[in-house]
């Protein structure tokens, strides 16, 4: 089968990643070498492509159903996008370390009337599409978080800047879909620190997804920069505002923080999918498949299997590659364990809430629109679009 022909396969409890993949120390060094003018952009691009191929291969070998490019081209979760948004000004371009954030500013409103200059994300996706026949998740940082790293001298209030970025990302999302992307994810890593702004963030998410025929996921975590949480708390702040988000899936962290917040999905009758974080990305300790299975079974009390997607808490960039591979294998094995139980129709020990249907029935009930891996309630946005 040619690499660019996606596999047609229905899977219950599809496994995926949140986005980033382990960044080896040598790659970090080469990225920094680029920012210090020791290697060319061309060489770094070639290095990135090889690293991405390896990351995809790792995911495939681990048995991940929906893979990503590992975000290995990106210097960090912010600058890769800000440097590509026309109108965002960077006073200084040098970095002592590739992972550092730039100081960015806008001095005039972002240009919107001129023909949209692509941010290049569609090209990134196309490269990944050419490397694998598995479904691909493509993620990018959301407008709210991007705005938090910009000093704004142009807009009357932050909301205007956030919405302007959202419109730019919407154009980019359309280009991604035109390139074949079907599962897109918006990451809002800073939102948990600005709970009072959750409605603004959701409003901006809806601008990004507007009219884009893809399955949309929204990832909200408590921060993972340098593998440290930036904030603590609970996901209560997301609700009920997030109900208004035109997304198909919420991707949240649970492994590190515990599963207590699952209650929110019942309390607010969330009727879309949940990307369940079952792997702690801030710890190098590898979970057992049994632990993963227990977490999934617990989640099944609140969300039915056909609306559950299995993933790590957040990006894997800060973990060593061998740890990542082991964690992903454990995640896949744990998921497989639960799938088998469901297929056998075994009553789930922990299940007190939603009764899980056997796999065949579940697949028939809520398959992904194009018959691919069920990425979780994937057609809401498409129908709206």
């Amino acid at each position, binding site marked *: 089968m040619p690499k660019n022909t996606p596999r047609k396969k229905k899977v219950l409890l599809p496994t995926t990643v949140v986005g980033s993949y382990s960044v080896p*120390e*040598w790659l970090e*060094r080469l990225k920094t070498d680029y920012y210090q003018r020791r290697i060319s952009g061309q060489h770094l691009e070639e290095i990135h492509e090889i690293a991405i191929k390896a990351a995809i291969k790792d995911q495939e070998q681990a048995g991940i159903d929906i893979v990503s490019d590992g975000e290995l081209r990106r210097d960090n979760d912010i600058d890769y996008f800000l440097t590509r948004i026309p109108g965002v000004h960077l006073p200084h371009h040098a970095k*002592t*370390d590739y*992972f*550092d*954030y730039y100081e960015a500013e806008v001095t005039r409103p972002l240009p919107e009337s001129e023909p949209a200059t692509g941010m290049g994300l569609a090209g990134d996706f196309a490269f990944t599409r050419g490397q694998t026949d598995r479904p691909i998740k493509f993620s990018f940082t959301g407008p709210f978080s991007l705005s938090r790293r910009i000093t704004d001298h142009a807009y009357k209030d932050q909301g205007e800047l956030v919405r302007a970025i959202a419109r730019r990302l919407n154009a980019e999302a359309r280009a991604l879909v035109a390139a074949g992307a079907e599962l897109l994810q918006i990451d809002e890593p800073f939102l948990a620190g600005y709970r009072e702004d959750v409605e603004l963030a959701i409003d901006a998410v809806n601008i990004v997804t507007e009219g884009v025929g893809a399955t949309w996921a929204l990832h909200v975590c408590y921060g993972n*920069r*340098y593998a*440290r*949480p*930036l*904030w*603590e708390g609970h996901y209560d702040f997301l609700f009920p505002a997030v109900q208004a988000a035109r997304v198909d899936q919420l991707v949240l962290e649970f492994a590190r923080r515990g599963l207590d917040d699952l209650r929110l999905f019942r309390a607010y009758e969330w009727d879309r999918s949940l990307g369940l974080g079952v792997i702690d990305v801030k710890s190098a300790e590898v979970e057992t498949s049994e632990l993963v299975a227990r977490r999934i079974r617990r989640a099944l009390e609140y969300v039915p299997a056909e609306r559950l997607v299995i993933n790590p808490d957040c990006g894997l960039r800060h973990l060593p590659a061998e740890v990542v591979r082991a964690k992903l294998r454990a995640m896949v094995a744990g998921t497989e364990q639960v799938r088998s139980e469901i297929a056998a129709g075994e009553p789930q020990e922990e299940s007190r809430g939603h009764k899980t249907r056997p796999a065949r029935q579940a697949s028939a009930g809520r398959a992904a629109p194009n018959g691919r891996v069920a990425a979780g309630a994937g057609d809401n946005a498409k129908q709206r679009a």
Partner: protein
Amino acid sequence: MRVDVRAAEKRLRESVDATAVFGPMIQTLGSAEVDLSRLRVVCDWIQYRQNFREPIDHRPLLSAWGGSNEHNGLEIAVDLRRCPDIDLTERIKDVLKTANANDQDRITLEPWVPGRESCIWRFNTLYWQALEQWEKATGREYEQALPGGESDARNREAVQELILELFKVWDDLDARQALPEELYVVELGVGNGNQAQVFLDMFAELDEARGRDYYHRLHYLMGDYSPHVLERARKAVAHHGDRISALVLDATRPAHTLGFLAGKAFLVYISNLYDNLPSDEVASIDGRMYQVEVRAYLGAADAQQISGEFGIATDQLGTLIDRLLRLGPELLSVSLPDRFPDAERAVGFWGQVWEALRLQERYVPMEGLDLYQISPSLSGEILRPVLEAAGDIRMHVNNGTLSSFADTLPLLHPYGRLQCHDLFLTDRRQYRIGYYGPGKYDGSVVNWVNGPLLQLIGNRRGFDVRFSPFKQRPTANVKTLTAQVRD
């Protein structure tokens, strides 16, 4: 021949008669049977009266890592401060002769090892474990050996400023209902407990005046690897009762014991600890990376003198020193009562050995920075930016400190800070104009701390690391390091 003078200009002008040193030195080396094209002369001005160096030493630059002793260069190390007291010409000739004679007269106490593995650190450990006997024998407390005669962490003005800043952070968090119930402060390396006492007394006083009652939510955790030191510190703050916990821990791996505090500590407070943790040294010479290996020894004359005074055969000295380091002075006197009728006599032996202890050095090529482990969790790759940017440089790795620092940062609350008073180099260029250890402080080892490396480690983990002069003693060598979350 290349001559590298690493002394500050002030030292050169005021303390060294350059003509008297450099003229004879160059003349002697020029007429010696040595390949001048592969000879480096490094001149330091060693400020420590007690140190591990002879006024003139030699250090081969080995040509390959592994067992080979072949070398492709020689370094002559000169202590400019002591040059006026010696016959320079004769000593240089002796050293060149010794270099060829393989140092047969010395009593070596260990094989060639990286600096952090040298037995000088066993002496250091012994000092903290048997501090009481040492102080009794020397008649002075260790704190008197510190610059300024006391730990800077006892400075009341500095402590007050620190506590008030802490209160401000807590007030702000409290206003947002984000202040945890338990408020943790950690002190690593507790000394005699005086700094904990100053902190806690002042904390209670200031808190009472403000009426926020943070004191009763405070948990002050004292950590030290010496149970004896810890017990003494605990007594000093006993009046603070349940607010205090004392934990025996390895300062180089604090999270091993304090893992339960991850993300919870509002202040980690460290004073004069980092300069006292094991360290390697690395060097970049002519574009090649080397690790400095050391070998502890006693000079022949010193060994003779100690042997005579304690009635020990010279060839038994090594075994006896090892026994001292294993048992400590008290048990040594119990096990060898004929030689050491009491602990004081054993401390006397210890003191004399310590005073005479020297380190031979050699440069061993590094196979690759990525293969050099600073600590189990830190790769030597972090050294690259500093080593590559600096040209020829020899610098401390401060392995114990880097490990401790990297292991402590995860304990900090997002609004927490690590504050440390110590001897920090704040710019790698300082290595070109000064000597920064190892030296001897009383019975302990001191190495200045490579600040730029700490900044790299902190930055790579998302922390801002800043150095500032110790405000209450701005001319002192001691600086204040503050690490806080950035971004």
